[in-house]
């Protein structure tokens, strides 16, 4: 069996009286993994330990089978890091900075120059690569940060809030780049973000932290599987349809209106084939009775937002 990408065992880190990580244990597989949690959950501390910037107080952690503390140099060649905060020198050009970062990762000078041009093309900055970074837009600066993380051909990318400060279009482009990096380039990505919708779209798995501990580590399929609820969209007299439907599913399911959608919650009733078929039949009959058009009927999938709202205590609401 292949070694996990990241394997942490009882990892703890104390800063004075604050326990940033408290016996954190997790095993993360290759692919694109989202790291979520409220502010102060311990995400940044975990990332800093992986990068060798902070020593753990106790516990063990390995990356690609290598102990982070004992093989720090080897691990640094395997990891590309894109920080959340501004970290770009404004008077250097994109090409100069990524080449410099390649050199700092141990690449020979000519290789660093070649790879700098390549990764800047991959992130869509080839034309602007000789402009000073200080003249770049926020989106371009984020791309340079991604390029410098890629320049030394790491096996793992650690991205801290990569869409921070981007407008919706820029966010889409950055997510596309990250997806491409993970799927086409074959790199594993650990992605820290507060934006659960983004993670839901591109991640293979999610690790949720709270107060330095693991809350859950599951694949996206497990997290966002079908809930058994039904979503129905009709064209016509919606209140009449709802009334008709409520009368038919009484005792089996609850009917709620969510804007243009009607949500049929199965409640505690057994989600058997029979029960589901009864609800389907009830929808069909209610459509006929209310004389509305049935536009769409689908099984509702769980969303990360809902799951985290349920599992995160009031102090740690994940926005």
């Amino acid at each position, binding site marked *: 069996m292949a070694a996990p990408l990241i394997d942490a065992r009882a990892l703890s880190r104390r800063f004075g009286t604050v326990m940033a990580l408290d016996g954190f244990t997790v095993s993360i597989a290759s692919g694109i993994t989202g790291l979520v949690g409220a502010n102060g959950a311990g995400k940044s501390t975990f990332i*800093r330990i992986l*990068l*060798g*910037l*902070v020593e753990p107080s106790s516990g063990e952690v390995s990356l690609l089978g290598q102990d982070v503390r004992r093989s720090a*140099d080897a691990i*640094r*060649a395997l*990891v590309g*890091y894109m*920080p959340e*905060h*501004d*970290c*770009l*020198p*404004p*008077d250097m050009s994109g090409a*100069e900075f990524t080449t*410099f*970062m390649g*050199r*700092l*990762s*141990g*690449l*020979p*000078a000519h*290789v660093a120059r070649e*790879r700098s041009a*390549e990764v800047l*093309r*991959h992130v869509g900055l080839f034309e602007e690569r000789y402009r000073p970074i200080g003249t770049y837009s926020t989106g371009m600066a984020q791309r340079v940060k991604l390029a*410098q993380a890629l320049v*030394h*051909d790491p096996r793992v990318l650690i991205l801290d809030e990569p869409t921070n400060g981007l407008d919706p279009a820029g966010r889409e482009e950055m997510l596309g780049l990250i997806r491409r990096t993970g799927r*086409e*380039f074959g790199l594993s990505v650990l992605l820290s973000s507060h934006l659960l919708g983004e993670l839901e779209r591109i991640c293979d798995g999610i690790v949720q932290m709270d107060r330095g501990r693991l809350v859950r580590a599951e694949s996206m399929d497990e997290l966002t599987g079908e809930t058994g609820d039904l979503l129905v969209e009709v064209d016509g007299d919606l209140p009449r349809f709802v009334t008709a439907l409520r009368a038919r599913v009484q005792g089996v399911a609850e009917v709620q209106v969510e804007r243009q959608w009607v949500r049929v919650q199965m409640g505690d009733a057994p989600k058997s084939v029979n029960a589901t078929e009864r609800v389907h039949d009830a929808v069909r009959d209610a459509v006929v009775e209310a004389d509305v058009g049935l536009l769409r009927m689908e099984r509702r999938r769980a969303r990360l937002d809902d799951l985290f709202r349920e599992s995160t205590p009031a102090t740690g609401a994940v926005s």
Partner: protein
Amino acid sequence: MSSSTIHNLGYRRYDGVREGWTGAWQALVWQGFRSMFGLGRGLRAKAIPAFVIAMVLLPCLGTVVAVGASNGQQVIPYGLLIGSQLLLLALFTAAQVPEVLCRDRQHRVLPLLLTRALSPRQYALARLSAVWAAMWLVATVPLLVLYVGELAIATDPAARFAEIGPRLWPVLLCGTLTAWVIGSLAAMMASLTARRGYASMLVVGLFLAAAAVTTGADDLAAMPDVVREFLDPLRALRTMAMLLFGETTRAMEVNPPPPVMVFVLVFCGLGAVASLIAARRLERVDA
């Protein structure tokens, strides 16, 4: 019409040689060295280095020409010339050392740099090495210009070299110690803050304060001469340069300074302490 085509080769893996921390260290030193002279930057960044280099070289070239025109009647005053240029070297460090030592912290690049093949100590030593190397060049080249110029204007350069050949060692020692002391003191002050402007003020402040204190101390009869001699590093460097090249002033004749070996030892120690403080400050990472 151009027939060139851009081929997207896709993402390519790299399985070649990695130079490790030595390559990273060299890159950091070279980048810092270039920053000391504003190379690879706009004209504004080059203004002060260019001004200082011109101002330290022109008097040396002028002296060589003047001595050549006098057919060897005049002697080149190495110590006096380098002594008069020390303030310019201090100005150079005030402007350029913060460029190298503060920018990574001011723009928060440092935590990112330390995720690569470098430890905090290696980073600090690389940055300080860049400062020392640039300072060595600026402090030693004028003396070398005088030395080579003296050989070039001689009617018999070979005979002149046999005569002044050993003077190369004082030239190198003077340039090296000047770079070591001024560079290290400037690095120590610049390492105290991440803001370039403040760092420049701190460097200038140190040298101005030392000069002011020494002027005041001249009136204190109770202060031992040795202590007074070393209160102002620039004045002490000037005295050492005069001693190294066998030159003297009226003040030195009236009040003889300590032997040159004392200057060498004190400057070695002072530079080491300042460098150590600077290195310790630069190693600190608030990741």
